[in-house]
Structure formats: structure tokens, C-alpha cells
């Protein structure tokens, strides 16, 4: 990789999202500020104030209202985006199901953060993992570049599959870290996203439709089955759109990133910003001749079970790293991996929880884990 001198930028993840949104230029953006999402919306508010975008930014009084307004706007036929974190996402919770149940292609960027109590403004995946069954597509990002790219990919995916999409970056670790960023030409992004022509909309009075009516015992169930069928097409469409995006950007994304997996016997499976530090640890051990590798999950909903099982077919030991708990059960990613590898009784699969409430993680810790020198459920 070389530093492409024609795009000399160093920006935070938050700014990268605002930049991508500026190029997408949604029709409506209902928004309520919360740390560490705030840099996204204050930057975007400046673009609106400076007349650089025509987006109607609706400053609502809560996240519940932000998602409600997003649902209204999207049902009316507007290209709609928003952003939140932590308590904000939790406060939206009931509206998340309405957005997905109505099959509205809303894009929401989440700067993932811990949940209270006790109060923490720092990063972990508790908030977004709490929304994993809400019927939203969930795409995770490692760094500002990925957030920029996947914000663009996510908008197109939402409109292609008719489901809401959550693009997730780690609060602070990514949202507030300044890193090199290559941005695309605005015209190229506009062309890639295309014009949004909703199949149905409330404002299409020639073809009247109803959104969110009551569904009684004889029909509710079918609606929910349809929703699962819509989600079942997400992985394939995500891959198609990622390939189209690769053509204009040169950057390749998939369901997950495989790092030095070819002959790896011991493999870390993880999500998000910590992947870079872990890759450095993998390199360190590879120098010593250890057969270690890594998988970084990018698409969490729809979860690519078969593809992951196939990628891990030669592995002997898997360590799944979660940045969230499921108190009373196993942590979320570990549970998915266990299901995906349920036929592999020959394989040792262990779980480690790390980074709750913004706890720092160091390369040395990953080295210890990969060398079998760490034997604890929590990386503390």
C-alpha cells in the first residue's frame, strides 16, 4: 500500500462519515447528538449551514424521535440517514423494529459505545450487539477508511435490499482517531449510489399504500417470515455491491477479512478496530514460525455462517474475541461462531471478552493469547 498523494487527507472516523454522507447527500437526516457520534453530525450540520448540501436536517429532541422521523421520512420516499451511539441506540430500540418491519432503507452510522450503568462514554459493542435481533443489516468497520467506504456501500445496500443498514465503527478508537483517508470524487460517489426511486412511498398518491397497519394472528407471522427472506438476500447483494465499489475505489471488502489464514492452525476471530493491533501480533508470531492467523468479521447481519466455516476448515484452534457480553449466556460473536462450527468436534473454540468500557488492548496481549500464555475469560 502506498500513500496516494492525490488524496492527501488525514481525518477522524467521525469526519470520514460526515464526508461520505456529504457525497451521498441524503434527502433527510433526523439527528440527536450523543458522544462519540457527535463529530459526525456537527460536521454535517456545518455542511448544511454552508449550503454545501441540500439535506433537510431535522434536529429532534431525542433518539426515539430521530428514528421515528427517519421512519416517517423513509416511508414518504426520502433517502434517509442518521447516526447515534450507546444510550441513543438503546432509546431507539422499539423504533428499530418498526424501521425493519416496514422494510425501510434507512442508513444509520453507529459509533459503538458502552451502555450505562455504570456510566461510560467509551467504546465497546454492547449497544450494537443489543440491536442484533432488530432486523437491521449490521456492517462493522476497522478504521476511518472502512467507515467512509462502508457508509457509501451501506446506503446502496439498504436501497437495494429494502432493509435498514447499520454501519458500525468503534467509538473513540475509530470515531476520534485521525488517520490517512482516501476519498473518492464526489461525482463518482453520486453515480455509484444512483438516484433513489422507492418502489412504494407514502407520497406516491397515484399508488396509495399503507405502512405499519395492524396485522392479526393470520398475517403477522407471514410478515416476519418475509422479513427473514429479505435478510437472506443481504449477503449476496452486499458482495455484489462491494465488488462494484472495488472497481471505483480499488478497495476490497467482503463478509470478513482473512489474514494469514492459508496454513493457520490457531486463528483469532474478532470484529472492529482491534483487528489492526491483532494483525501486528500475528505477524510477530509468524516471524517465529507459529502458524497463526486472523478473521475479522465485517458483515454481522446477515451472518455468513457457511463461508466462515469454510475459511476455518484447516484450523485446529479458534479464539473468539468479543467486545460485548451476553450476561447469562455466551458472548454474541462466540455464540455465532459456535453455531457455525457445530460439526467441528475436533476443534478447540474458546471465548475471550475484551475492551469493555474502552479498556485498552495491547499487541503483547494478543501475542500471549496466540502463544497459549493467556487463560482467562476476560482480557483485563
Amino acid at each position, binding site marked *: *500500500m502506498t*500513500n496516494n*498523494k492525490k488524496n*492527501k*487527507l*488525514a481525518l477522524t472516523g467521525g469526519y470520514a462519515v460526515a464526508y461520505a454522507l456529504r457525497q451521498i447527500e441524503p434527502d433527510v437526516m433526523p439527528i440527536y447528538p450523543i458522544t462519540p457520534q457527535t463529530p459526525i453530525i456537527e460536521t454535517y450540520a456545518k455542511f448544511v449551514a454552508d449550503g454545501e448540501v441540500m439535506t433537510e436536517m431535522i434536529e429532534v429532541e431525542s433518539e426515539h424521535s430521530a428514528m421515528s422521523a427517519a421512519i416517517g421520512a423513509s416511508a414518504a420516499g426520502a433517502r434517509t440517514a442518521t447516526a447515534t451511539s450507546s444510550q441513543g441506540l438503546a432509546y431507539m430500540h422499539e423504533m428499530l423494529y418498526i424501521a425493519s418491519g416496514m422494510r425501510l432503507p434507512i442508513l444509520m452510522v453507529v459509533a459503538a459505545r458502552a451502555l450505562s450503568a455504570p456510566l461510560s462514554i*467509551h467504546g465497546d459493542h454492547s449497544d450494537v450487539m443489543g440491536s442484533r435481533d432488530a432486523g437491521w443489516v449490521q456492517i462493522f468497520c476497522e478504521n476511518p477508511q472502512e467507515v467512509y467506504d462502508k457508509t457509501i456501500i451501506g446506503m446502496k445496500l439498504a436501497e437495494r435490499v429494502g432493509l435498514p443498514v447499520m454501519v458500525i465503527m468503534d467509538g*473513540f*478508537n475509530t470515531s*476520534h*482517531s*485521525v*488517520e*490517512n483517508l482516501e476519498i473518492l470524487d464526489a461525482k463518482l460517489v453520486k453515480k455509484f449510489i444512483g438516484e433513489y426511486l422507492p418502489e412504494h412511498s407514502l407520497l406516491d398518491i397515484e399508488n396509495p399504500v399503507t405502512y405499519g397497519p395492524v396485522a392479526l394472528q393470520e398475517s403477522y407471522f407471514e410478515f416476519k417470515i418475509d422479513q427473514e427472506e429479505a435478510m437472506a438476500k443481504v449477503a449476496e447483494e452486499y458482495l455484489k455491491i462491494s465488488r462494484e465499489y472495488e472497481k471505483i475505489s480499488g478497495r476490497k471488502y467482503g463478509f470478513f477479512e482473512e489474514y494469514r489464514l492459508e496454513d493457520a492452525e490457531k486463528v483469532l476471530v474478532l470484529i472492529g*478496530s*482491534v*483487528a*489492526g*493491533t491483532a*494483525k*501486528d501480533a500475528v505477524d510477530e508470531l509468524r516471524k517465529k514460525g507459529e502458524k497463526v492467523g486472523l478473521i475479522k468479521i465485517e458483515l454481522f447481519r446477515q451472518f455468513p455462517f457457511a463461508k466462515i466455516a469454510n475459511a476455518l476448515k484447516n484450523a485446529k484452534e479458534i479464539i473468539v474475541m468479543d467486545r460485548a457480553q451476553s450476561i447469562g449466556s455466551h458472548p454474541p460473536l462466540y455464540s455465532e461462531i459456535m453455531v457455525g462450527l457445530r460439526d467441528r468436534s475436533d476443534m478447540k473454540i474458546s471465548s475471550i471478552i475484551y475492551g469493555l468500557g*474502552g479498556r*485498552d*488492548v*495491547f*499487541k503483547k496481549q494478543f501475542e500471549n493469547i496466540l502463544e497459549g500464555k493467556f487463560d482467562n475469560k476476560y482480557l483485563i
Partner: protein
Amino acid sequence: MKYHKDTMEFIFFARGGQGAKTAAEIIAQAAVAEGNFVQTFPNFGPERSGAPTKTYLRISDKAIRTKEPVIDPDVVVVLDDTLLSSQKVTEGLDKNEALIINSTKHSHEIRNTIRFDGKIHAVDANGISMEVVGQLRPNTVILGKIIKVTEIVKLESILEEFRKIFEEKIGKENCEKNILAIEKAYDSI
């Protein structure tokens, strides 16, 4: 001072409101303009005016993947010498690495108060900024000293980035005064 690793790593010690983050970002932008890879982020503690803060900066000719806080810095910058008594500023700093301090004290005086065998570069950034700019701006003034000591980017690149970020915000005259102060810190012994 020359690279001894792929990546040059900095820690800035300051107090909330002194602008360490801005200083690190100006260096980062200049380094990107020169074709390098960068990463800078604050230690995400509670951000209160006057409370001790840490800001990390990495510059490399290769892509930077790690997200861990800097634990083995090549350069430590201290924007406020009252932090020397409460913060372990020389932790991880070897004798061939650099400590740059905004202080009216001489290097040998500072050496008496901390354990450090390496080179101490003291610069009166407060004094220079008051004299040249007429305002307390140690964070931008100290950039001159950092560039002189580390040679991590060209002085012109820093000045160019400074103008790009601040000329519109603070006006051309004020901006040029700051530039003069950065140059003065660069030339100071």
C-alpha cells in the same frame, strides 16, 4: 534525530485546553502532505480543562494498523512543566530518544528533577508566544522545536498546514505572527 524504527511514535503530555491535540494534528497533516502514513488520537480520559492529558502520534512510511496506545515513544513532548512532578513523562523513553519541554528552566535544571539520561530540549514556548504573538500559544510555538529536533517533516510543510488551518480562522496578520513564533522556536538553542 533519525528514525530507528519503521514508525516514529510521540506522546504529548499537556493539560486540557492547551492544544496538544491540535499540535499533533498539524504535524500529522504535514506528514500526510509529504506522503507519509499517520495516526493520532487522544488518551480518551475525562476531558476537563486543566486536567493532565496524553495525546499519541505515529508517523510512518508504511500503513499504520495498530490501535494500541503508544507505550514505547521515540519522542515525548511536554507542554507544561508542572506536569513533571505528577506524570511519568520519561516512561519508555531511552537515552537516545528525545524529551522536548516547554519551560523557562534550562535543560540541566530539568534533569535534576527527573530521571532521564537522554537529551532534554527545553524551549520557552510560553515566553516566545507572549513576545511574538502576544497570546499564550505554546502548542503551536513548540512545533518549531519538535521539527528541529525530530526532522520528522520539513518546517515549510508545518507552516503550510498551519496557514491552511488557521489563516481563515484567526486572520492573516495573526497567522503570520504565529508562524514567526514557530520559526523562532525552531531557531532557538
